[in-house]
């Protein structure tokens, strides 16, 4: 059924349709709408689940870790400093192989205090063993949340569904909300591969001495590799029921493109406008939207780029001392393969708008410069402030 939903509502509806049993979260802008909605569902009975109130995000993650260890489907959501506070527990969730799903609304970290869009928070959790899916719109946020449960429970790894602050979390769009019956067909009841059981007590997360620890780590890496293979199959099943697929990456008019713009999140919607404009003017330009970040879809990226000579990567983040993170990851994926030169741009930090015009500037700079600079280029900087 088509409904006009806020991005946050789309995620909350998906969690409801997934029949989660335990939700635990601590409010933080711009994530709060998601868990407010779920709290309402728990209280009005439209979701047969329990909302555990906690005093911090660390405890929120600890609560869902406990619940998931007991073998139930769980959900949480966070953002920015809240996610940073969860960091220790994020490692635990993945190494404990718990299929937790979390909505993560990309927001900048302070100081300066900033509530707006920025990818640094989720990318800083790159190595925690969580699968990460970046969404472009409300529909995808809903679909990705449903797919996240399917995937998480197949590979026993947690999944982070990432949404842009405000641009997605607070924007109302038409969303096709599936029926419960359809969702039940796609997402069967959770059958945990292990769970704590008072009738057969045992301890999870025991001491793992050197003779076994490395194998356990390797098992996580293997599961990540499995996720890379299984997400397309999950999407296949999803498409069979709902008629939609989103891909590991989303290549738009890339087939014969010479210059490709790459990015994640809602900026891709803006880039589509520019690509269409330039295509209409006869330019061979394409867009590569990265949806899956962990595991990193290197093969899919290489396949999508085809004959492109230049790739302009737009990062709404910066790893200080190294530059845009997506650019680094893509460069590494292309290393040793024939592929385009990677131009790295840092743009739109802390909620600054990425417009068609700013993207046109990125396109033209890439077109006009024969070789990429070694450093990331910062887009639209107010140099006069920096010079003072």
């Amino acid at each position, binding site marked *: 059924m088509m409904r006009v939903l806020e991005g946050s509502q789309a995620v909350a509806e998906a969690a409801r349709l997934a029949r989660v049993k335990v939700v635990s979260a601590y409010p933080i802008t711009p994530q709060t709408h998601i868990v407010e909605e779920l709290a309402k569902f728990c209280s009005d009975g439209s979701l047969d689940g329990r909302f555990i109130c906690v005093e911090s995000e660390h405890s929120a993650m600890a609560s869902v870790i406990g619940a998931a260890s007991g073998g139930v489907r769980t959900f949480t959501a966070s953002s920015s400093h809240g996610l940073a506070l969860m960091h220790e527990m994020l490692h635990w969730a993945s190494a404990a192989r718990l299929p937790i799903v979390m909505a993560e609304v990309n927001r900048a970290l302070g100081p300066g205090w900033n509530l707006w869009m920025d990818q640094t928070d989720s990318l800083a959790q790159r190595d925690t063993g969580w699968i990460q899916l970046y969404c472009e719109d409300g529909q995808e946020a809903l679909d990705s949340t449903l797919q996240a449960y399917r995937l998480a429970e197949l590979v026993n790894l947690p999944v982070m569904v990432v949404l842009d602050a405000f641009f997605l979390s607070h924007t109302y769009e038409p969303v096709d909300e599936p029926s419960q019956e359809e969702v039940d067909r796609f997402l069967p009841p959770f059958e945990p591969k*292990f769970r704590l059981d008072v009738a057969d007590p*045992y301890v999870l997360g025991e001491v793992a001495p050197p003779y076994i620890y490395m194998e356990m780590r*390797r098992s996580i890496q293997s599961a990540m590799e499995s996720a890379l293979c299984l997400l397309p199959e999950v999407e296949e099943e999803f498409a069979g029921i709902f008629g939609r697929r989103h891909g590991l990456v989303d290549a738009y008019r890339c087939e014969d493109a010479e210059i490709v713009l790459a990015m994640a999140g809602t900026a891709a919607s803006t880039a589509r406008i520019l690509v269409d404009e330039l295509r209409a003017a006869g330019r061979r330009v394409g867009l590569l939207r990265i949806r899956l970040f962990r595991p990193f879809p290197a093969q899919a990226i290489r396949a999508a780029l085809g004959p492109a000579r230049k790739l302009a990567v737009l990062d709404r983040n910066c790893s200080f001392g190294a530059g845009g993170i997506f650019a680094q990851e893509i460069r590494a994926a292309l290393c040793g393969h024939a592929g385009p030169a990677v131009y790295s741009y840092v743009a739109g930090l802390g909620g600054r708008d990425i417009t068609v015009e700013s993207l046109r500037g990125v396109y033209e700079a890439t077109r006009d410069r024969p070789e990429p600079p070694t450093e990331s280029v910062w887009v639209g900087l107010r140099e006069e402030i920096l010079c003072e």
Partner: protein
Amino acid sequence: MSGLRSARVSLLLPRSHSLTDANKTGSWSFIQPRYGDKTAPCGEACPCAEDIPRLESLAARGLYAEALRAVLEENPFPATCGRVCFHPCEARCNRAELDGAVAINALERFLSDAARDAEAPSLAGSGASGSGAGKRVAVLGGGPAGLSAAYFLARLGFSCELLEAAPELGGLLRYGIPAYRLPPEALDRDIERITRLGIAARTGARVDASFLAREAAGYDAVVVACGKSRPERLALPGAELAGDALAFLAAARADSAPSLAGKRVAVIGGGNGAVDAARTALRLGASATILYRRRREDMPAFADELRGALDEGVSLRELRAPASLARRGDGSILLAAEPMRLAGIGPDGRGRVERTGSPAEELAFDAVYAAIGAAPDEAWAIPASSLKLGRCAIDLAGSPPRAYLGDLASASLPALAESVADAIGSGKEAAIALDALFSKGPGRVEAEVERSRVGGGPSVSLGAYLGGERGRRSRRVVAYADLNPDYLERRERELGPELSPAEAARGFAELRAPLSPSSAIAQAERCFSCGLCNDCDNCRTYCPEVAVRLSGGRRAVDTDYCKGCGICVTECPRSAMSMEEPVS
């Protein structure tokens, strides 16, 4: 879908059926929590050493009879003290730092009324240590000190004979405190409870020092609790024109006071007796003036009492020293009052005054009463060799041994306050001292009394003396800073509704109505239970190692698994736990 179902994904997890019990993580700790109740400041301050946090906690649960019994363990006068005690407990209540002291005094009164019918079972013999059996004690004086001594001695198994000069028991409580502060019915209830313990009381039996010489040999011990019943006389020209305020109060209690309608009455003095006399005169129709030679803030009377008197219309002339009284032709009395001025502050913090030299002010009254203190009626010579305890002196070498109580001993015990509660505490201390004397011998008396003290103050607890739980509490007094402020929520202090000053001045009705049952519970719930575990269970709830075990209603730290993180101690709202080095 079946393809996905059969997907093989690596899953290698550490899992152990042997449980972590084998890993005794408690062995790593170098410091561990201990349960240890401490002393609440209110209980230390109470001259009767009532176990206030405990009785508040019982009252909060609606267990009025149990709460009253907890009071009666240490104080046989709940109905009386719940009305007239100057409640030093509240002055020390930690709650005062947050939102006002717990209404301990009002709650004591509530309990004495509410649990009247369901009263605690008789406490006779409840403290029998064996030493008292067969021993006869004469208690001279049926005021609060003597009645208290008899009560505790009887509970310790002594057989008591109580001799009182007045026609009824109660002493100052009966004859000196007006009915609007202490209705006779409330006092009678307390006294009946005491005499029910089997005390042989003889009223109208005046005793003097010769009694000891004549009759003492018939007893194993004598308790001298005659108090100060002889009023001090004014020393000034015309002093004989001034009546005695105590006698006036006694007449008012007996409804035999003259009508004072339209009369001008002066009361000379600054103590509670002066204030009581002025308010009583007011109630009998007079206009009343208190004359005091020092400043208002130097008056020994309780500030609340004075404020009540002034609200009702009593006048206060401070810094006025009466110089002479003279009868005038119209029958009225001319009082010459010399103006005084402050001449420094004495070591007791009260102002010292001197004459200003200005001419005396001449004031006309129809009656003048002196309330300038009292002295023992009889020169009871307390031997210098007596053992001086906190609130009484014991002549261990006397034949038989004798205890001098309360007001009587105050000259040799300068720290002793002259209040009802102090008198009661004095009787209890003497009872403990005599019991210790007979059971442990004279050399142990001081140590046994010392062992029974609460906190660092002079008050003694019978419960502690008898080896009860009270005696095992740490003497450390819990301060506000020892409490966990996260658990301290603001909640208003409430007392029973008060009569308006105009209503109050019309008669001898009690000034304040009692707390309602719901208010009483709400007020009892305000008690932080400083230093005393009240089963809040925070320690067990917050222990991250699940190392606090609850069994049979008692909590214990499982030292095999306690790592000594101290969270339980931090989360204990009331300082009933502390971290200590493990004792091997």
